[in-house]
């Protein structure tokens, strides 16, 4: 077995026992990258020199008896919408092609401070807008389980890299499901923290009140490790939570005996692919068998959440993307005057999906519409928050399938409106409410494609979230790997 298939926890053990050096681990991961990248294409940029020095530094620290933490020497990937100093950061857009930021995102600083080895930046839908990574202006990333299919999005590159073993863990961002959905489609664990627990400083903003950075990993335990490293107050982010980060490890292995699990009625039936529904129901039964009390709850606001999201996200993104104007960095398309230059630059630099959302957002904010659109949507957010709070009075966690479908074919963007709608409804409500959520792989469908099980918890409910996720992981015992590794063809 290649060291690239080790979990972060297991790798940490062999690094500390001296059986493997960080340089050696990096080598193994690089060999895996060389094998898989030609087909998966998860990465936009590799940081060879940076990774080499980080691995060397990790080895020196080990030798000196310095322990920087569980990520010391661990090769990780970072979604390309988080700035990395001196390393090209594009947000998947032509408007930032070749851009080298002069600073690191806070989460990147924290990874580095923990001794992590960042191997490269991963592909994404342009500016995180999309759910298949097909909106990247650079390349299409292929799902390691079936390379004719999408890895999901917008954090498709990070999900695919972890699935392929091209990184032992990765960071992604989730605004409407962009960590959880690709995690589900790629058969890995993907988690979105409570809004405010992880700093957004250095995350190229899409929708400021919805964006959160979170981990991808192959196990829940590894996801916890990544979460603990990046979470915590950051004075550079005014929306950063100032209280203590909830302690997750204490109850992680406590199981689900006595916990109340609420199945979201609106997401438990119609419109789900049969295999997805079956895997979901099977998992719920396993949880019941393990001592959890199962109930079905109705959350009518999950539908309202969608409409509110589709007003809030474009509005905020239209303002967040205004800074890309060719003046201070990135692409510039010349013009006779600065106004022309800005328009021409944005026209060439933004893809059609981004342009569409910027226009819609501008419209949603324009005079006369604010109250009816954005203003009203903010009130709906309150309704959603309250609806969820009421549900959490009845249940400790809520569950649903992460996505109504498994990975669809590239170029075949799912045209079924109900399916696309349901896909959004599964994930968007927790972004709107600011609550944490996680996807755990629980099985494969008839075509060998992974299915994800989603758990939602109340704000700051990471302890119960991870606890249930860990139990699901145990019960589901999902051990399959994409056939891509060791030179085999697709599953």
């Amino acid at each position, binding site marked *: 077995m290649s060291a690239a298939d080790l979990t972060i926890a297991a790798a940490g053990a062999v690094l500390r026992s001296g059986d493997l050096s960080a340089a050696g681990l990096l080598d193994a991961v690089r060999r895996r990258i060389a094998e898989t990248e030609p087909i998966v294409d998860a990465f936009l940029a590799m940081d060879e020199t940076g990774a080499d020095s980080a691995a060397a530094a990790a080895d020196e620290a080990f030798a000196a008896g310095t322990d920087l933490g569980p990520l010391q020497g661990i090769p990780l990937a970072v979604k390309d919408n988080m700035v990395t100093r001196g390393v090209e950061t594009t947000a998947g857009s032509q408007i930032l092609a070749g851009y080298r930021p002069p*600073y690191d995102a806070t989460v990147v600083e924290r990874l580095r401070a923990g001794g992590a080895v960042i191997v490269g930046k991963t592909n994404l839908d342009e500016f995180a807008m999309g759910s298949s990574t097909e909106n990247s202006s650079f390349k299409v990333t292929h799902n390691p389980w079936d390379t004719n299919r999408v890895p999901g999005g917008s954090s498709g590159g990070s999900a695919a890299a972890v699935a392929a073993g091209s990184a032992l863990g990765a960071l992604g961002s989730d605004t409407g499901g962009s960590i959880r959905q690709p995690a589900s489609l790629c058969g890995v664990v993907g988690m979105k923290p409570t809004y405010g627990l992880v700093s957004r400083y250095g995350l190229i903003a899409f929708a400021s009140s919805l964006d959160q950075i979170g981990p991808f990993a192959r196990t829940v335990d590894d996801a916890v490790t990544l979460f603990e490293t990046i979470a915590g107050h950051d004075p550079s982010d005014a929306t950063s939570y100032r209280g203590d980060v909830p302690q997750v490890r204490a109850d992680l292995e406590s199981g689900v005996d006595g916990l109340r699990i609420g199945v979201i009625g609106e997401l438990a039936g119609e419109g789900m692919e049969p295999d997805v529904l079956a895997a979901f129901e099977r998992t719920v039964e396993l949880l019941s068998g393990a001592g959890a009390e199962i109930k079905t709850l109705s959350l009518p606001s999950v539908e309202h959440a969608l409409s509110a999201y589709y007003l809030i996200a474009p509005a905020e993104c239209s*303002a967040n993307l205004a800074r890309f104007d060719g*003046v201070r960095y990135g692409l510039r398309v010349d013009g006779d005057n600065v106004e022309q230059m800005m328009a021409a630059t944005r026209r060439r630099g933004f893809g059609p999906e981004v342009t569409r959302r910027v226009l819609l957002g501008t419209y949603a904010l*324009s*005079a006369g519409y604010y109250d009816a659109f954005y203003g009203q949507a903010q009130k709906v957010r309150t309704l959603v928050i309250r609806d969820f709070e009421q549900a959490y009075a009845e249940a400790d966690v809520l569950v649903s399938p992460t996505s109504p479908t498994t990975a669809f074919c590239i170029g075949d963007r799912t045209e079924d409106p109900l399916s696309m709608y349901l896909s959004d409804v599964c994930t968007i409500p927790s972004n709107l409410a600011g609550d944490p959520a996680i996807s755990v792989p629980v099985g494969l469908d008839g075509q060998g494609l992974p299915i994800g099980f989603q758990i939602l918890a109340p704000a700051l409910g990471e302890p119960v979230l991870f606890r249930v996720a860990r139990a699901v992981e145990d019960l589901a015992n999902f051990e399959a790997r994409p056939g891509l590794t060791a030179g085999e063809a697709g599953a």
Partner: protein
Amino acid sequence: MSYETVIGIETHVELKTASKMFCGCPVDFGAEPNTNVCPVCLGLPGALPVPNERAIEWTVALGLALGCRVAERSLFHRKNYFYADLPKNYQISQFDLPLCIGGHLDIETEAGARRIGITRVHLEEDTGKSTHLGESGRIHAAEAALLDFNRSGIPLMEVVSEPDIRSPEEARAYAHELLAIILALGISDARLEEGSVRLDTNVSVRPEGSTALGTKVEVKNLNSLRSLQRTLDFELERQVGILESGGRIAQETRHWDERAERTEPGRSKEESSDYRYFPEPDLVPLAISAEAQERIRASLPELPAQRRSRYLDLGLDNRSARLVAEGENYGDTFDAAVAAGADAKAAANWLTGEVTAHLRRAHMALGDSPLVGGHLAELHAMVKGGELSSTAAKDVLTGVLDGEGTPRQVAEKRDLKQISDASALEAAVDEAIAADPETLDRLRRGDQKIVGFLMGRVMGATGGKADPQKVREIIQERASG
């Protein structure tokens, strides 16, 4: 038909905090371009704003000084427009929930005292600066725009008056008083010419007695009180002229052309007035507690109006009271002088007279000169005690301002001390009388001319240092016996 003017003023004030409004870059005027910048004030991808606590406190302080109510809950909003000197292409500002609302400012003009309402005081960030590369350095026919973001993100406070101002004189008085308050609070250098304060005005006219508002014309970026007043004088005339000839006033933004001495249409930076305001999602609301407000209120320094009033009570006339209260460091120096025993009027006269003239010649500010209140007290004591004539006192003052030392030291060094010693003066007088045998006779006969002549001789013989009062007394004594 007679018309009245309806004038409002918006004052933008750059705060002299150590760091910028939303990041830790230094607020430092005159630095090399683009050396005080960071991801936040450059609008780099991924950057986030965090508000400067002191800028907020100072805004609350000004609001309290203006009698405003501090909002229980206040929000920052994004004001969206595209402009190359605005890095994010939106400005973080305040919209419908500003920090301070509803205050007033009392002013005095020749026409009397008036109270001008203050609509609001709010806080925002300043933009970068653009210059134009080309023949004239002006926008027209420029080759390129050059951008410097040192100013981007500096805290900018905006004070909006109600349209209560009724004349160009009142406008000037309002602006003058507001700047005096700002200076007293120590929150800005408040220098119009340097750009740390910018004035916008809006003006309309209506028939006297009417309550309907006429069409408003805006004039932006006035950089002196004089141009404010002259702009308003001009607009008043222009607008009345249009109305009287049956025309209609165009609602527009104009700018003041100093050379042509008129306002001209256009030159407005913002093409669209739809700023698409929405609450800044990267920030959380401001909630200034009652305790915080009290603390800030308690720490307010003496305001100009209070100070002027105190000086009037001390016996200063209106003009001196105003000059001493408002001159930078004048009030503090004056207070120190009086505390050290100086006579209030004497100290005030020296400050507004000799000291001001000297500082002007030397292009110096009082705060940069060696003069302190104690010097004035010492000087006063020396004059009162007869050691210095009032003329000599002025010379001594000059010496102190030039750094030659304390009044006593200067008097010694420059040998300006008055001779008051009776025996020395008597000797000098007697000598002068003895120089000519007829002198004593003429004196005894009451010849006034000889008194003057003798005064001259004695002053000459003593190098001008004899105490003239005492000399005159001695001469009179000799005359009478």
